[in-house]
């Protein structure tokens, strides 16, 4: 299995990088874009021998303990087949 982990800043936290990117899109003439937030994306390769629930549990723990800082960030874990 492969776990896809998305780490994003909590909505209440200012994202100066996202703001700078948004500003650039405005300069380029993109209209109707109200906001851009920057996040991080991880792919975790898990042993094929693991069950889906074991894979999910491990990926969730890695996301919670390592990949995201719960003070400022939220995370989301998606499990997909290896070729996904």
């Amino acid at each position, binding site marked *: 299995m492969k776990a896809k982990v998305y780490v994003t800043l909590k909505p209440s*936290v*200012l994202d*100066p990088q996202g703001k700078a990117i948004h500003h650039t899109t405005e300069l380029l003439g993109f209209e109707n874009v109200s906001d851009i937030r920057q996040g991080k994306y991880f792919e975790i390769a898990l042993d094929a021998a693991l069950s889906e629930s074991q894979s999910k549990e491990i990926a969730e723990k890695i996301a919670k303990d*390592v*990949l995201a*800082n719960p*003070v*400022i960030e939220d995370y989301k874990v998606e499990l997909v087949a290896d070729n996904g």
Partner: protein
Amino acid sequence: MKFGVIVFPGSNCDHDAYHVISKHVGQPVDFIWHKETDLSAYDAVIVPGGFSYGDYLRAGALAHFSPVMEAVKKFAASGKFVFGICNGFQILCESGLLPGALMRNRGLHFVCKHVNIRVENQSTPFTNALAKDKVLSIPIAHAEGNYVCDDDVYQQLEENNQIVFRYCDKEGEISDVANPNGSRSNIAGICNLDRNVLGMMPHPERACEELLGSNDGRDIFRSLTNRITELSV
């Protein structure tokens, strides 16, 4: 009295801290490699500035899983002194020894300059040689120094007098203009509830010699040695 300076892969202010402790504070000091797990020989450890693990993932995030950090947590729990400077402050927040987090500066730039900070709490082991409201000139050098915490944590910091330094102007006024990175309420340094763990973004170890533009940092180290001496009597 013995100091230790922790060295992670990517630490780069470790030698500055070592120099200040040995030359200006005049105390024995060791470098401590991050694989070390025994800190029993020390009274205080400095978690120095730099770019531990290249700031990968988040500043300080990977360093907090180094073996030495478990020892630092026990060291702090036993009442010994832990002093995190810049990247060291980020590591202490990541490891939960201090509340909150340090994010990308409001203006996105790496800011490297002397700033003024005001002593908000003079009754900590790190500030006992200073007067409340004294303004210190200390350099900062960081891209992730924007202190954030939620309202509950902020209220606790205020109520328990854990805010030790705030960014201010030359006259000691706290203003948004004097805030170099967007930190909540101009916070430049905080301590834990027990007062034995301090984290600050400015670099007092770079402000101990007139030649370098300021020696205001000396009083912070002097405070700490005062306190350790008191405890050993």
